[in-house]
C-alpha cells in the first residue's frame, strides 16, 4: 500500500521523463520533435546520442533507455537478440540515402564512384565500416561497385556519421560518405556524388525504432506513436528523410 502511494505521489510530483537513445543522424530532428512533444504531452525527452552500435551496446548492457532509434537494422537486431525490446513495437521509421560529400571549398574532381579509387581522394571519412551503420552501408555500396578493396586503405573511420561529416567540413579529409540528410543540413559541405535509392534498390538505407523494456514502456509507446504521426512526419520530411 505504501509503495503504491509512494509510486503514485512520485508520478504526480514529477512529470514523466523518458530516455531516447537516438542514432546521431536523427539527433537534430529528434531534438526538434522532443520540444514539440514536451509542449503537447508534458513528457520530457532526454536524448542520448551516438553511433547506433554504441547505443545498442549500451542498451544490451542494461543502460537506461526507453526508445531506441537505430540507423540500421543490424544494431536493432542486436538489441532484439538480447531480449531488450518490447515485442511488436519495432517499426521501420524512416528511409534515407547515402551521399559522397566533399568540403565546400574542394576543387578536386570527384564526380563518379571510380574517382574515390583515384588520386583525388587520399583520405575518405566513413563511419567505422564494420559497425557504425553509415559506414556499414557505405562499405556495402563500395563492395557492390567492386571498389572496396581499393578504397579501404584510404578510409578514416569515425565513431558516428556526424564525426565523419565534421572531418569533411573542416577539410581534414578529401571526401566522406554520409547520409543525404546530414549533407543537406550543412552548407559547409557539398554533395559530390548522389547515391539515390532508386538507382540502388539492393541498398535499402532504413532507420528503425522500437520500445525498450523498462519502467516507462507506456510513455515510450506513446512517444513512438507520436514519431509516426503527422507532426513528427512533417519535421522528418522537412529535414529530407523519406517515409516508408
Amino acid at each position: 500500500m505504501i509503495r503504491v502511494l509512494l509510486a503514485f505521489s512520485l508520478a504526480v510530483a514529477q512529470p514523466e521523463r523518458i530516455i531516447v537513445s537516438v542514432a546521431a543522424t536523427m539527433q537534430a530532428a529528434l531534438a526538434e520533435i522532443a520540444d514539440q512533444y514536451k509542449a503537447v504531452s508534458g513528457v520530457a525527452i532526454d536524448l542520448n546520442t551516438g553511433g547506433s552500435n554504441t547505443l545498442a551496446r549500451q542498451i544490451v548492457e542494461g543502460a537506461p533507455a526507453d526508445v531506441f532509434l537505430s540507423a540500421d537494422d543490424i544494431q536493432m537486431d542486436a538489441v532484439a537478440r538480447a531480449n531488450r525490446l518490447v515485442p511488436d513495437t519495432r517499426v521501420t521509421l524512416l528511409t534515407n540515402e547515402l551521399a559522397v560529400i566533399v568540403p565546400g571549398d574542394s576543387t578536386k574532381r570527384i564526380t563518379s564512384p571510380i574517382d574515390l579509387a583515384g588520386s583525388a581522394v587520399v583520405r575518405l571519412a566513413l563511419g567505422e565500416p564494420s559497425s557504425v551503420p553509415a559506414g556499414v552501408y557505405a562499405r556495402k555500396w563500395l563492395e557492390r561497385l567492386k571498389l572496396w578493396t581499393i578504397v579501404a586503405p584510404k578510409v578514416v573511420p569515425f565513431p558516428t556519421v556526424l564525426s565523419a561529416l565534421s572531418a569533411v567540413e573542416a577539410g581534414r579529409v578529401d571526401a566522406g560518405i554520409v547520409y543525404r540528410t546530414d549533407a543537406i543540413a550543412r552548407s559547409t559541405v557539398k554533395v559530390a556524388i548522389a547515391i539515390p535509392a532508386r538507382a540502388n534498390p539492393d541498398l535499402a538505407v532504413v532507420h528503425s525504432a522500437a520500445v525498450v523494456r523498462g519502467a516507462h514502456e507506456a510513455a515510450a509507446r506513446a512517444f513512438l506513436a507520436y514519431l509516426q504521426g503527422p507532426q513528427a512526419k512533417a519535421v522528418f520530411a522537412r529535414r529530407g528523410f523519406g517515409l516508408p
Partner: protein
Amino acid sequence: MTAETWAIARFTVLMALTATFLVLPPAIATGWVLARKSFAGKALFETIVSLPLVLPPVASGLVLLWLFGRRGPLGRALDAVGIEVVFTWKAVVIAMMVISFPLVARSVRAGIEQVDQRFEGIAATLGAGWFQILTTITLPLASRGIIAGAILGFSRALGEFGATIMVAGAIPGRTQTLAVGIYTLVETGREELAWGLVAISALLAFGAIYVSNRIAGSRGTP
C-alpha cells in the same frame, strides 16, 4: 592473442619510444631553465609548460587538430610541402609528445635541482663554460631524474588516448594504438580482442613501474 593484437602493441611501443626520444631534448632544456634560471615571467612559463598535464588530453588533441589540420596555421604550411600529419603516425607521435612533455620536464627539473650547485661553481672557477658544465656536471648528476622522467613520459605516451584519437584517429594498422584500440574494439563489438590489448598494456605498465621503482630505489647507494 592475434597477429593484429601484437601489431598494435608493437606499433604503440615504437611510437612511444619515438615520442620519448624526441621529447627529451626540449624537456631537458626546459627542466634546466626552470631549475637554474630566474627571469621575468618564469611563473607564467612554468604554468604553460605544465598545461597539458592538467588540460583534458582531448582538449589538447583538439588544439593539435586545429594546428595541424589542412586549414590550420601549421598544417597549411606542412601541406604546402606535401607533409600530412593529421590521421597519420606522425600525429600519434606528436600527441604523445605534447601529453608527456610536462611530466618529463618536471622530472628533469627535480633532478637538476638536487644537483649541488657548488660543483657547478667549482667547474666554473676552473674555467668551464656553461655548456661544458651542463654536459659534464649537471646532466650526469641529474641522470636519475632524467631517466625517471623518460620512463614516466614513455609510460604516459603508451597510454595516451584523448589527444591521439582526436588528431590521429583510430585507423586500423595505421594510427591505432593500444589505448585507442581497446576503445574501438569494444565500440565495434570485438571486446574479446580488446582483452588481449588490456593484457599487453598491463604487462607494459608493470614493466615501466618496476624499472622506475628500481631506479628510485637505488637512489642513495653509491
